[in-house]
């Protein structure tokens, strides 16, 4: 009889500790087959805690809708993978996410490479923290050294671009453009350029990299809370892009180029400079696919108002408010923020948010550059109207690139359309 009660007591204790519980984790494909990539971590976590983790993959495009459908059906996954642009709608969706302020300890907060990012995430949702980043990417630029050297670009300028304590400017880029833009085959037309702006993109950041560099609002809002498009920053950014085009420093047809086309032009040695280089490209894919590409990563330029910024994106985790296993879900988040898991996650070339790198990456000076820019990198604006604003500003940039509008007209139209979008 005593044994029976001990057994029952033991089982109850295991149940209390979460042993045997299965949490459902829906994740977006931050790597090919994330369920396989995460399997060793899950195995280790299960061995340590007895909590099983069942992983399902949802595409980035469908993530918010699928999460909402699951929440509405009362079948929300315990743990959800999100990004800066995706979590605000879920917070607004009937308070679907669990506030995490009560879970996160001061000690854990201090582990983050840039703790104030947690405050930025909380500020996007009225001061309450609903998501915790587990890894991040920032963007660097890159230059083709072969082109620069063949065109007589001074080592001083190259050093200015690659030294975090120095700075190069938009004027330096124009000067660089005048040196590297060339007609190599002698047919009277340039076939090597400075930079290809992906004017046909639907992405968020290509324009924002220039807008922020010109001193644009990180949140795309004025202090009064209005859209900040009819501003000097917009006009400066558009004027600069237009000038690059008019001077012939960009290839023809940039208004239709996708971001992948811009990357293809750089890796094919057609352009000398690119400003949206992901860590996975710089450190893994390009060396494998383009072994002859002699490139060097560079810091972002300093804009005309003295601003130096780049883009920051992260993988965020949130717990569903309706989850019956919140403690277990949080335990998994804590596990993913452990040194061991963070080191493992860096194999995805999204960098550990705690800065805990494996020795080979920690020793790589290029990785240090990605961490250097983290201090001033700006996350995707988390405004609910961002989806529409993105469409609006990309189309207005296109209008400038094809000469249909002046930068002033485009900035004014951006503002008008962004305000209309808010009213709707």
């Amino acid at each position: 009889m005593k044994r029976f009660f001990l057994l029952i007591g033991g089982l109850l204790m295991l149940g209390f500790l979460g042993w045997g519980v299965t949490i459902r984790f829906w994740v977006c494909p931050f790597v090919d087959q994330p369920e396989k990539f995460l399997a060793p971590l899950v195995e280790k976590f299960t061995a340590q805690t007895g909590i099983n983790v069942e992983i399902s993959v949802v595409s980035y495009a469908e993530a918010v809708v699928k999460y909402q459908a699951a929440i509405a059906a009362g079948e929300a996954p315990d743990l959800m993978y999100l990004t800066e642009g995706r979590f605000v709608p879920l917070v607004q969706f009937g308070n679907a996410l669990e506030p995490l302020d009560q879970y996160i300890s001061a000690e854990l907060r201090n582990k983050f490479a840039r703790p104030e990012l947690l405050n930025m995430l909380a500020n996007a949702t009225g001061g309450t923290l609903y998501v915790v980043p587990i890894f991040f990417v920032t963007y660097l630029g890159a230059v083709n050294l072969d082109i620069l050297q063949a065109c007589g670009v001074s080592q001083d300028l190259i050093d200015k671009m690659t030294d975090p304590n120095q700075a190069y400017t938009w004027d330096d880029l124009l000067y660089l453009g005048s040196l590297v833009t060339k007609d190599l085959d002698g047919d009277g037309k340039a076939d090597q350029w400075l930079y290809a702006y992906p004017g046909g993109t639907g992405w968020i950041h290509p324009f924002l990299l220039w807008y922020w560099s010109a001193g644009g609002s990180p949140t795309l809002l004025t202090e009064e809370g209005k859209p900040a498009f009819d501003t000097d920053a917009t006009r400066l950014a558009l004027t600069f892009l237009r000038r690059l085009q008019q001077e012939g420093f960009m290839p023809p047809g940039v208004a239709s180029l996708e971001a992948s086309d811009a990357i293809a032009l750089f890796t094919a040695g057609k352009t000398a400079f690119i400003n949206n280089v992901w860590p996975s490209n710089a450190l893994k894919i390009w060396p494998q696919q383009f072994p002859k590409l002699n490139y060097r990563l560079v810091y972002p330029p300093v804009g005309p108002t003295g601003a130096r910024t780049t883009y920051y994106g992260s993988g965020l985790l949130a717990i569903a408010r309706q989850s019956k296993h919140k403690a277990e879900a949080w335990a998994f988040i804590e596990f993913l923020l452990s040194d061991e898991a963070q080191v493992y996650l860096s194999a995805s070339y999204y960098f550990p948010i705690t800065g805990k790198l494996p020795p080979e990456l920690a020793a790589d000076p290029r990785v240090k550059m990605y961490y250097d820019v983290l201090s001033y990198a700006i996350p995707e604006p988390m405004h609910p109207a961002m989806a529409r604003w993105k469409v609006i500003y990309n189309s207005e940039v296109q209008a400038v690139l094809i000469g249909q509008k002046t930068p002033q007209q485009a900035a004014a139209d951006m503002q008008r359309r962004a305000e209309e979008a808010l009213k709707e």
Partner: protein
Amino acid sequence: MHKLRKYYLDITLAFPGLFLLITFFVAPAIAIFIVSFTKWPIIGSPTFVGLKNYSKLFTDEFFLRALKNTLYYTLILVPSITALSFVTALLLRNITRGREFFKAIYIFPMVVTLTSTAAIWKGLFLPYGPLNQILVKLGLNPIDFLSVELVIPSLCLVLIWRDIGYYALFFLAGLESIPPEVLEAATVDGAGPLHRFRYIIVPLMKPIIILVSILTTIGSFMIFTLVYVITGGGPVYSSQALLNYIYDVGWKEFRMGYAAATAVVYFIILFLLSMIQRLVIERE
């Protein structure tokens, strides 16, 4: 009840088909109609806004531009595909050796998925792509195929390339059905090839010409993938077709109510086109 019992077996047999039809076609269509009277950013519940979406639609410069673009696609595609597929069929008919081979070659673009086709042509159209490299090698100026002025004709070029083989089969079947003795009699009476074409072949092929015209008209109103993959509707909405507009409003801007209203108007346009098609075919 007695009558129902009489058709019990018929109803049972039709039930799976009816169930699928109602679930996947009728119910979504009704849902779209209802959503079109709401404001619904996917998040939360829809809010009823009455006819606001519809009244806004006809003053919306982007919707009107998409409609205009779609008509432009139609104006280029219908005569081009109809004429070129007719010509292709005539050529195929006169080939005595290897006709099946050429038929297969012409039908091949239709077999390849449109997404793959679009991805390939996107590469061809690039300012420094193979087409422009050929032009430069020939001493000509490169062409910005995806510029505001040329983007719709360029996209139409892809669709024409893709579709003429398919529609040529319609014409070929029609040509095969023309009794040879009619043509022989005309030849005996002194009719040359042009006269035979104008006074015998074209009148007899009229039903096929109408059918192909109607199918290509409806097809041109259903352009989506090519625009989505090659230009995304740009530059500056200059290639955006109606379906792309509906998709963008719904899935990029999350204005489901407005997208639904656009879809209802789009449905009405297609419905009217189908009615015209039916009337014309019945008359012929």
